[in-house]
């Protein structure tokens, strides 16, 4: 491995300083940082909404918010977390790490990269600002189903506009990632030598390009139904509200994988490092990721079993959904096989990664249960589904984001994360996460409907428990803020270029923190 030549480090940027630097930057690391800060702010905003929801559900009856605001909060919580927190966070990781992992100097379209990011704050303002317009924010649920979404006030239009903007941002970001990976790899970095994080993001970017325009089309049709006299989904004019559900979920199910495939990539980077073994079954991981992506296009109607569907349709979507367990199982098997007989240590990133495997797998299992049509008809729109997708999106996406953040924090800041505080963050998050969401399985099985601010008395105990867990989980996330601020301000142990003993990959060959410009001359990978 080549040694770094300090005289040739290029650790400064050209052009404006201060605020203008961030507004005009085309540097992938700056833009990655902005994505991550933005997503964490949105995560906190979405978290406050979640805690308000949980505060209302602490006891039966109406205590904290009006039912209208409750519905707005559930809707915006979903939209903010999906489009404002999870997706931009992964794009931030992609911006920071993909060019360094493949030996590129920057993303393929550096200026478009800047624009992709700066579209997001106006969209977020539209979304969150819609609480303050007459009629309040949209309350149709994050899926924006008609007829509700056709009837709502201007908050709905703001949400539609925000989704269009965020969609454009996502598509541009995805194109940038695809082109960077296809065209900008260093000599010798063949596709099958790429780190798995790049592979999972490449496949995710294809998914984004395929499905974000479909969502944009669906919400455009909502907009024209609302204001321009069309009747795509308006039954009064001969339209079909169920058509919207088909189009939405044709986007919505691949969207689930958009939020989880990069997580698989992050975990696949971390486990080999701390097991001190190469990743087991690299090629099968690539094929499994591709299989998951392809299958994600043919399972959408499992979200719609209760809309009424021919038995043949139910069977097709049920079995197709269950089929996804096979490539997902390959991945879980490979992670465990990588750990098998490894010299494992459990630093904070590894704790998050192993925690991810345990808890995400539970979300996967409940997904299989939801896929069974006769069972789904019973548990549809209950808290069982809420529990299921939070096990996938919090324990899956969020835990992997934390795993990645602790793993690459030394590369970003030049300082090692505080292990003691990091472990406190992990254990408190894991425990409070399960206190929050595990009881929801029982609530759902007992029939508690989602998106309702009040509930029958028999659900009181589990709801109280879930609310206590939610506040504990929310407070635990502030620990992460402390870890990041400490490292960013130069606190803690100084990080070496290869910050973790057995970390492999091009990103660990550059100093920590990574210089402003890296790989301006492409490395040659043997």
């Amino acid at each position, binding site marked *: 491995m080549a040694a770094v030549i300090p005289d*040739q480090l290029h650790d400064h940027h050209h052009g404006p300083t201060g605020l203008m630097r961030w507004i005009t930057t085309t540097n992938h690391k700056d833009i990655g940082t902005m994505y991550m800060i933005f997503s964490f702010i949105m995560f906190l905003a979405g978290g406050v909404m979640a805690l308000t929801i949980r505060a209302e559900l602490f006891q039966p009856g109406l205590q904290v918010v009006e039912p209208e605001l409750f519905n707005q909060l559930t809707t915006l919580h979903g939209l903010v977390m999906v489009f404002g927190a999870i997706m931009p966070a992964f794009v931030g990781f992609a911006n920071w790490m993909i060019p360094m992992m493949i030996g590129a100097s920057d993303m393929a379209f550096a*200026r478009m990269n800047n624009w992709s990011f700066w579209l997001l704050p106006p969209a977020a303002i539209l979304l969150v600002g819609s609480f303050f317009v007459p009629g309040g924010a949209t309350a149709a649920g994050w899926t924006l189903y008609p007829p509700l979404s056709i009837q709502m006030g201007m908050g709905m239009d703001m949400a539609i506009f925000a989704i269009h903007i965020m969609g454009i941002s996502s598509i541009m970001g995805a194109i940038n990632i695809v082109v960077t990976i296809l065209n900008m790899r260093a000599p010798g970095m063949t596709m099958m030598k790429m780190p798995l994080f790049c592979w999972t993001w490449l496949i995710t970017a294809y998914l984004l390009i395929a499905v974000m325009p479909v969502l944009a089309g669906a919400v455009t049709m909502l907009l024209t139904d609302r204001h321009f006299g069309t009747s795509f989904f308006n039954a009064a004019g001969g339209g079909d509200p169920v058509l919207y559900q088909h189009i939405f979920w044709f986007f919505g199910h691949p969207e689930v994988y958009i939020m989880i495939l990069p997580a698989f990539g992050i975990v696949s980077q971390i486990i080999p490092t701390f097991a001190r073994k190469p990743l087991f079954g690299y*090629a099968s991981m690539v094929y499994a990721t591709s299989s998951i992506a392809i299958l994600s296009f043919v399972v959408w109607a499992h979200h719609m079993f209760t809309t009424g569907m021919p038995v043949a349709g139910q069977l097709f979507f049920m079995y197709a959904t269950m089929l996804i367990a096979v490539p997902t199982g390959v991945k879980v098997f490979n992670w465990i096989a990588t750990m098998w007989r490894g010299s494992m240590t459990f630093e904070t990133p590894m704790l998050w990664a192993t925690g991810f495997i345990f808890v995400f797998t539970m979300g996967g299992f409940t997904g299989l249960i939801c896929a069974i049509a006769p069972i789904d008809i019973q548990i549809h729109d209950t808290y069982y589904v809420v529990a299921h997708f939070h096990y996938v999106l919090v324990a899956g996406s969020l835990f992997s984001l934390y795993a990645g953040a602790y793993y690459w924090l030394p590369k970003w800041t030049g300082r090692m994360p505080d292990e003691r505080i990091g472990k406190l963050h992990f254990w408190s998050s894991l425990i409070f996460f399960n206190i929050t969401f595990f009881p929801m399985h029982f609530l759902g099985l007992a029939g508690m409907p989602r998106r309702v601010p009040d509930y029958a008395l028999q659900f009181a105990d589990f709801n109280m428990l879930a609310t206590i867990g939610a506040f504990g989980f929310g407070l635990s996330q502030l620990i992460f803020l402390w870890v990041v601020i400490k490292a960013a301000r130069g606190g803690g142990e100084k990080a070496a270029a290869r910050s973790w003993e057995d970390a492999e990959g091009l990103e660990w060959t550059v100093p920590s923190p990574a210089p402003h410009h*890296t790989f*301006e001359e492409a490395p040659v990978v043997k």
Partner: protein
Amino acid sequence: MNGVSASVANVNAAIAHPEIDDTTPEGAQHSGGGGPTLPEAGRMTDPRRKRNIRTGLFFGAIAVAFYLVVIIKYKVFGS
């Protein structure tokens, strides 16, 4: 070891040890020195620029086509 597992093992080995050839000028400067600054590199000097634009436009066109097809399909043929 059969052929398939041998090739998997090779790939794993390559991933685990991505060596940089520091005998070449490119390898020696891999940590980021000496080359053109980003604005210069991004402007016209990168020979990959044309290929990047072509690939980007291709995927952009696919995205726009998907968007239009979804709307036009249901506008023309109904639901």
